[in-house]
């Protein structure tokens, strides 16, 4: 307790030098918490959006389906097994049929994925209900990115061309019945959503699907020829991106901490050099070398406490404001196919804040302890005399 009291007195007495050190350290606190909060916010938001718009509670893939290999689509379809029907009727499972095709916006040819979805489904947020029967053309829905890239709007007609199960070409007009806005590019870019039964007829694949989407919380029925894919597979790409971003963030934190630690280390070395008489007097008055080392170590570590207070003074309003208003994401992010809303709202967990404080405190203590070891080698008599050691 005495050591802490003395440490505070000494630090306050050091004036501007203490506050500069504390300020640099406080920036490290704020940056670490801010960056981790942004990543956590992005991660949670992306996972939530992917579950809502794309993967539901998991997917059941036809055995030949590989979403990363469009060449598999030709063979990746099979009749939906009877055992799935009960879950489908209860709205706990919804089949999706996928094929590749071409479409011709403004007379240009473009490759596209045609996806069939049940207009009655409610597992995904996709507004499939807008795919109501139309006598003039096949109703279709696309995302805002697809609409923007191809200058399409609701009510427009466009020609699509595909091949049926036997490889024969077919073509028809589709009507853009709905343009939906989503933060998940994987259900938007290069995709046209059609009513499932119509796509099944177009492809001559009645009752068939490429994969099925489970309602969150539902357990899949195991059937041969169909493979269940959980979040560990479906969100793996997202997790990997966040992990890589975290590594990039760690480099930033390390630089920030190094700067702060360099300042504290420097201050400690300077203080020990300048306060040799005081060290000698302390030992002469009966303090052990360990107690003196402890005093100086605590003094350095208290920088961490002061920095935490300082970070709280300006950091809490700043970070709270961003938690409310969010951070705008760069526009080109969609090009990488990453799920991300226009604004990311950071999430600052208690574990994150406590973890950061502990990390900074431990680092500061270690950095303060190392120069103090020199005290152990000092001769108190020489120190009292002011002889430089």
């Amino acid at each position, binding site marked *: 307790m005495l050591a802490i009291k003395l440490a505070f007195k000494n630090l306050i007495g050091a004036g501007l030098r203490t506050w500069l050190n504390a300020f640099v350290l406080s920036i490290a606190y704020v940056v670490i918490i801010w960056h981790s909060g942004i990543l956590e916010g992005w991660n949670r938001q992306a996972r939530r959006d992917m579950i809502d718009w794309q993967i539901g509670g998991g997917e059941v893939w036809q055995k030949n389906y590989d979403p990363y290999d*469009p*060449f598999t*689509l*030709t063979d990746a379809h099979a009749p939906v097994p009877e055992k799935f029907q009960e879950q489908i009727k209860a709205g706990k499972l919804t089949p999706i049929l996928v094929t*590749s095709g*071409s479409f*011709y916006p*403004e*007379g*240009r*040819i473009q490759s596209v994925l045609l996806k069939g979805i049940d207009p009655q489904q409610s597992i995904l947020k996709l507004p499939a209900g807008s795919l109501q029967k139309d006598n003039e053309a096949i109703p279709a829905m696309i995302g805002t990115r697809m609409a923007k890239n191809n200058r399409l709007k609701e009510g427009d007609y466009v*020609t699509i*061309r595909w*091949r*049926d199960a*036997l*490889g*024969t*070409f*077919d*073509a*028809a007009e589709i009507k853009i019945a709905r343009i939906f806005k989503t933060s998940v590019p994987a259900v938007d870019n290069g995709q046209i959503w059609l009513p499932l039964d119509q796509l099944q007829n177009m492809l001559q694949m009645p009752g068939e699907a490429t994969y099925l989407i489970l309602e969150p919380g539902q357990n899949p029925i195991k059937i041969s020829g169909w493979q269940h894919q959980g979040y560990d597979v479906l969100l793996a790409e997202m997790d990997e991106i966040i992990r890589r971003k975290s590594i990039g963030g760690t480099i930033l934190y390390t630089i920030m901490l190094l700067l702060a630690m360099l300042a504290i280390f420097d201050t400690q070395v300077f203080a020990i050099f300048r306060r040799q008489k005081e060290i000698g007097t302390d030992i002469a008055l009966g303090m052990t070398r360990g107690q003196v080392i402890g005093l100086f170590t605590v003094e350095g570590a208290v920088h961490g406490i002061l920095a935490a207070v300082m970070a709280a003074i300006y950091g809490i309003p700043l970070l709270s404001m961003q938690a409310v208003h969010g951070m705008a994401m760069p526009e080109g992010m969609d090009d990488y196919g990453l799920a991300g809303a226009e604004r990311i709202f950071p999430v600052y967990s208690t574990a994150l804040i406590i973890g950061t404080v502990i990390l900074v405190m431990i680092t500061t203590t270690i950095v303060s302890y190392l120069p103090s070891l020199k005290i152990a080698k000092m001769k108190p008599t020489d120190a009292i005399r002011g002889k430089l050691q």
Partner: protein
Amino acid sequence: MKHIIIYFLTTLTLYAQYPDGNVLLEKIDRNMISRNKIIISRMIIHGRRASRTIESKSWIQGSEKSFTEYLSPAREKGTKMLKLDDELWTYSPSADRSIRISGHMLRQSVMGSDLSYEDMMEDPKMQNLYSAGVIGEDTLLNRSCWILELQAKVPDVAYHSRKIWVDKTRYNILKEERFAKSGKLLKTTDILEIMQADDRWVAKRIIFKDALKQGRGTEFILESIEFDAHIPDYIFSKAALRK
């Protein structure tokens, strides 16, 4: 009732004047298919901004084997394509690798043209794929021709129906339209010039066009054609791709 009988009689009389479509199809195939041939041609691919010309030499044996080597431009020079029955291989000199084109890749465009690899792979014997009926007459390139409507007789054919304009005496195709199952026009082939080679009549200048796409299509110009030429067997081997 009298009108209906007259209508049917007139129609029957008209159809009676037309030859059998399937017989015509056989004659067309006979004109088109030879034991073997060597062709030198140019393909002009008209893009949105510019056009590209690709020159090639092809060795073709029956309907099963063909070997094509691109002669120009410099970028494509040395690229080769080998078709052996239903297998297609391409060789790129820059990568020094042979790749088998299969499955979905066969649907890709050849060198950015309006033709797909699959179009090139298609069985040229139309009577194997379609049954034909004559539906009318027309005049193209100052030649009198029959209009034939072809309906697929096998299920796994790329185009469900076709319409072809055939010279009445020379039995060469002067125009073609390919349709989707829905009846939508997908591709057109317009013959702009014909030439005689030995005792056959062949198209010298052709425009292939994706009918759903804007643009001027792909022009094919036949520079020379030699029927029943001597083609050594090694040409139709994978080893020839690397030579």
